[in-house]
């Protein structure tokens, strides 16, 4: 699947296109098919997102898994600070993105 990601303009937080807006959670990301460029152009001009781009990902049983480790780390948070990730209580979260 193809999904869209970027950073929130004001906070810089990593966000994912969920079909109607930008979610903090990669598992909310939807397949944009061939429509990514149009969504990026529209959302950028609406100032809702900063530096958006399209990536490859796959839907797994546990959620949406970006193809590249960089985006998987973006989706979780720094692996060396589990307390600052989006899943601070999940002891397996870091292992799953590596």
């Amino acid at each position, binding site marked *: 699947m193809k999904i869209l990601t970027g950073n929130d303009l004001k*906070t*810089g937080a*990593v966000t994912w296109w969920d079909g109607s807006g930008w979610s903090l959670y990669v598992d909310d990301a939807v397949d944009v098919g061939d429509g990514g460029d149009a969504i990026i152009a529209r959302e950028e001009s609406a100032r809702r997102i900063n530096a958006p781009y399209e990536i490859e990902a796959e839907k797994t049983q546990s959620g949406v898994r970006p193809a590249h*480790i*960089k985006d998987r*780390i973006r989706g979780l*948070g720094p692996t*060396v600070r589990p307390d600052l990730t989006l899943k601070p209580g999940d002891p397996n979260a870091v292992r799953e993105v590596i």
Partner: protein
Amino acid sequence: MYKYDQWDQAMVDARVAEFRDQCQRRIEGKLTEDQFKPLRLMNGLYLQLHAYMLRVAIPYGTLSGAQMRALGDIADKFDRKYGHFTTRQNIQYNWIKLEDAGDILAALAKVEMHAIQTSGNCIRNISSDHFAGAAADEVVDPRPYAELLRQWSSFHPEFSYLPRKFKFAVIASETDRAAMRLHDIGINIVRNDAGELGAAFYVGGGMGRTPMIAPLINGFVPLDRLITYAEACLRVYNRYGRRDNKYKARIKILVHELGAEEYTRQVEEEFALLLAQNIEPPFAELERIRTYFEDPAFAADAPDELDRSDPDFAVWSDRNTHPHKAPGYVSAVISLKPVGGIPGDATADQMRLMADLAGEYSFDECRVTHTQNIVLPHVRKADLFALWQKLEAAGLGTPNLDQVGDIIACPGLDYCSLANARSIPIAQQISQRFAANGKGEILGELKLKISGCINACGHHHAGHIGILGVDKKGVENYQLSLGGSEAEDTSLGKITGRGFDEAGIVDAVETSVDVYLAQRQNGERFLDTYRRIGMEPFKEALYG
């Protein structure tokens, strides 16, 4: 320490107001990201993996207690209660909101700090010896010269859009504690046979994709020509540096391609032209700056003995202090490398504590080292035990300066958008491994440096052991190199061979260390043994 005059303060305040307005216009959509990006970068604001990142300049690594406290307060109020001290003697905050950027810069300006020229193709923060003004072996305090260069290079219109970023280091001792020859321009303040001070210019060093050691191009530039000579060096670069190719745009490539001799000839020619234009700031300005760096009032009767009866304290004081020029004093190094910790990270509370300790024990001064530690430069030996006890209680008393656990690691793929691989977890695992197996205690000096990509912010080329993270088809992989040094015996490490995965690189470091332990003679350091026996025994052990 240098204190802003009205012009310094006015410039910084004006920049805060300007950037606050630019941020607001970006938020309101009056600026596109393409328009805004160069503006935010000029103010040290990057967009990294998880958020905006703000890099704050710490000129020549020197901070007052009030400045260190302000850095802690900013971490508390605007970030997630910590900051990361970098190999450029700066601090970075990882979780900044665009809407807070103006307030943060205003808070910095209140304590005479800013984030100007911490990004972009300009002259960046000037680094120096972290023991400057304290070291027993220095010819003179190098910081007044670094400060003069800072003032000259701040907003210098001719050098705001260089072919690439540009880094100076200024030292004043034979021992190099600032990786001086791995800078675009390294300056060593020296004394000639007549007893006069001058500047030795080394030009065209650097790490990154094409590491090079800067050649000496002029061994003695009189100090009343310092700025003119620097200007000549920059002018030749600005004119002929490779703007057509980002990877060939650093001055090291120009010096290499022209040859040091031809580059020097052109600099001397330009220097002669500039001398006629009389651009050197009045010597009185240097004298004015120098007054800010006069020695604090060291006690003449400070006792020189140290009570070493506590064995843990004795180990720490042996490893983490440096000889001071004033009798009865030492410079104390606070390690930001606890076993298994994140190199260079300090919490807001730790920063405020270090600020307090600077006030209590070190004439209100501290320093950031390029090895990502903090120095209290002027501590009475009589106070050292009390200081150590307070550091210990705050998790800041790790006795590992220049040991295997004192690892330089860049933020890597945990934070940096340019990274190929994570650096920090490798540093953590290595420091844990050598703490657990006890070998860390018997190794002596071993400088281990890790970068998450070829940009080499973690100085891996200059590590006795260096590690470079690479991307192998989407999987983290690590190249090992041996034999680098960023001290006065500067050398570049050589790659051992094929890379290793995350677990393999930690084993490979231990294997290399075992070769050293088996082969070392007469108190040799790892680097000495490597230089004596060469790469082959290490390769044999690593790859069979």
